[in-house]
C-alpha cells in the first residue's frame, strides 16, 4: 500500500506544480519571456482568496474564483509593467527575466508591508470527508486538488485548440514573426497570455493553500519548482511539462517517504540535472529550435 500512497502524493504535487510549469512554458514559448514574476502572482492570488474568505463569503467556488481572478490580475500587471515596455527592445530575454524577478521581489515586499509576516490560512474548500480506494484513504482535499487542476488544464487546452485567441497564441508560439505578418498583435496577445497563465498560477495558489499557508513569500518555492519543471519538460511543450511534473512529483513523494522531507529539494534538483544532461532540450523540447533561430 505504500507504493499507492506515494503515487497518490506524487500526483497531487504534480497537479499543483504542473499548473505553474505549464504557465511558465506557455509564456516562454509564446512571448519569449521567462516570467519569474509568478512568485508574486502566486502570493497575490492567495491574498485575494484570503480577503474574499474574510470579508465576502466562505463559499468554496467563490474563494477559488477570487484566487483565479487575482492571479489573472497579477499576470496582467506584470504584462503591463514589464512585457509591453520591453518586448521589442534589445536583449529582451535577459531584461524581461530581471524585470519580472524585480516585480516578484517588490510585490512580495509590498504584500509583507500590507498584510504583515503572519501566514494566513484559507478555509477547507473541499470539505473533510474521505473515501477508501483499494484500502488506501483518499481525503477530500487530495481528490479536489487533482480534479480542479485537471479541469483547469483541460479548459486551457480546449480553449487554446478551439478559440480564436487560442489560435493566435499558438501561432505566436510557433513563429512570432509570421504572427505579426498575419495581423496578430504581439501586445494584445501578451495580455491574454499573461492573464491566462496568471489565472493558472492563481488556482495553483488556492490549491496549495489547502496544505500550506499563504504568506508574502510563499510563492518562491512553487516558482522555482515550476520553472525547473518547465525547463525539464522542454520549455514550450505542455505535454513535456505534464510528464516532468509527474516525474518530479514522484521524486518528491518518494524522497519524503524514504529519506525525509528535508532532502526533497536535493533529490529533485539531482533528477532535474540528470534529465538535462541526457536531454539538454528537456523531455520534449521540440519548440526550442524554432525559438533559437
Amino acid at each position: 500500500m505504500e507504493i499507492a500512497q506515494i503515487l497518490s502524493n506524487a500526483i497531487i504535487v504534480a497537479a499543483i506544480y504542473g499548473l505553474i510549469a505549464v504557465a511558465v512554458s506557455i509564456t516562454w514559448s509564446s512571448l519569449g519571456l521567462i516570467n519569474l514574476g509568478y512568485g508574486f502572482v502566486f502570493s497575490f492570488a492567495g491574498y485575494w482568496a484570503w480577503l474574499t474568505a474574510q470579508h465576502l463569503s466562505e463559499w468554496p467556488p467563490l474563494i477559488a474564483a477570487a484566487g483565479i481572478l487575482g492571479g489573472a490580475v497579477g499576470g496582467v500587471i506584470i504584462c503591463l509593467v514589464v512585457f509591453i515596455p520591453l518586448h521589442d527592445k534589445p536583449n529582451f530575454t535577459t531584461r524581461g527575466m530581471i524585470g519580472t524577478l524585480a516585480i516578484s521581489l517588490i510585490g512580495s515586499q509590498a504584500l509583507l508591508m500590507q498584510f504583515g509576516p503572519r501566514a494566513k490560512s484559507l478555509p477547507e474548500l473541499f470539505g473533510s470527508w474521505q473515501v477508501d480506494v483499494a484500502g488506501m484513504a483518499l481525503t477530500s482535499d487530495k481528490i479536489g486538488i487533482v480534479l480542479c487542476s485537471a479541469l483547469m488544464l483541460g479548459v486551457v487546452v480546449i480553449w487554446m485548440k478551439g478559440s480564436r485567441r487560442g489560435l493566435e497564441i499558438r501561432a505566436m508560439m510557433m513563429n512570432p514573426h509570421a504572427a505579426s505578418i498575419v495581423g496578430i498583435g504581439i501586445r494584445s496577445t501578451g495580455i491574454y497570455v499573461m492573464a491566462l497563465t496568471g489565472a493558472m498560477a492563481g488556482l495553483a495558489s488556492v490549491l496549495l493553500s489547502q496544505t500550506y499557508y499563504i504568506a508574502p513569500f510563499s510563492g518562491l518555492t512553487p516558482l522555482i519548482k515550476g520553472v525547473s519543471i518547465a525547463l525539464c519538460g522542454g520549455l514550450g511543450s505542455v505535454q513535456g511539462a505534464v510528464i516532468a511534473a509527474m516525474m518530479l512529483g514522484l521524486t518528491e513523494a518518494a524522497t519524503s517517504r524514504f529519506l525525509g522531507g528535508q532532502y526533497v529539494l536535493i533529490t529533485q534538483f539531482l533528477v532535474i540535472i540528470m534529465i538535462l544532461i541526457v536531454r539538454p532540450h528537456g523531455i520534449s523540447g521540440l519548440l526550442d529550435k524554432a525559438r533559437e533561430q
Partner: protein
Amino acid sequence: MTEVLKIDGLSAGYGPLRVIHDLDLVIWPGERLGIVGLNGHGKTTLIYAIAGLTGWQRGSILLNGEQIGRTRSQGAGRYTHQIVRKGLAIMPQGDEIFTGLTVEEHLDSGAFTREAWRDRKTRKERVLDLFEPLRKLMKTPVGRLSGGERRMVSIGRGLMTDAKLYLVDEPSLGLAPKLGQSVMEALLAIDLEDSAMFIAEQNVALLEGRVDRVIGMHAGKLKGEASTTLGIG
C-alpha cells in the same frame, strides 16, 4: 481615385545597414505591379518596410490615403498588426508559416478582421477553389507539406481577408518551374476589383505580359519602368 499605395522618400534598413534609398512608388486600384530584381537588392525589405517590420525606417507611406509610414529607429513589428488591419495582406516567402498548425487553422489565422472571422467558412471555400490540392490536406500540419503546398497555404492565408493591397514576395522561389507557373496563375486569377497587388519576383519571364507594370529594383532603388503590354524584351 486615391492611390492604393503612395510611397514618398522611403528609406529603410537594419541597424547601420541602409537597404532602401529614398524610394518613391505609386500603385493604383486594380493594378498588378511586378517588381523585378536580383537577390539582396531590397525587394523583401521594401515589403517589410511597408509593413513596418524593418529595423528602422523613415518616409511617408500612404495606404488608401491613410498614413502608415513613420520615422522610427526601433520597434520592428510593433505596429505591423495595426497596419495589416488597415488592409494589407502579406504573402511572405516560404518559411513564414506556423509549422504545427493544420492547413485549416492556418487559413483561419489569416481571417483576423471581425467580418472575415464570421464568414471564414465561405472564404475558405473560395481559397480551396483556387488551390484544389489543399482540399484533402485541411487537417494536416503545415510542417509536413511540400514547398509548393506551403506556398499555396501562405498565399491562401493572405486571401482570407478583403485586403486593399496584396504584397506577394517571390511566389515562385524554390518551386519547380511548373509549380511556380501555376502559383503565378492562381495569383493572376484573383479578382482584384479596386484593390491592388504587388509581386516581387526574380524571374522576369513569369511576369512578362501578365501584370500591368514591371519596375526593376537595383541596390535599393527603383530603376526603369515598363508597361508589360508593350513587352520588356
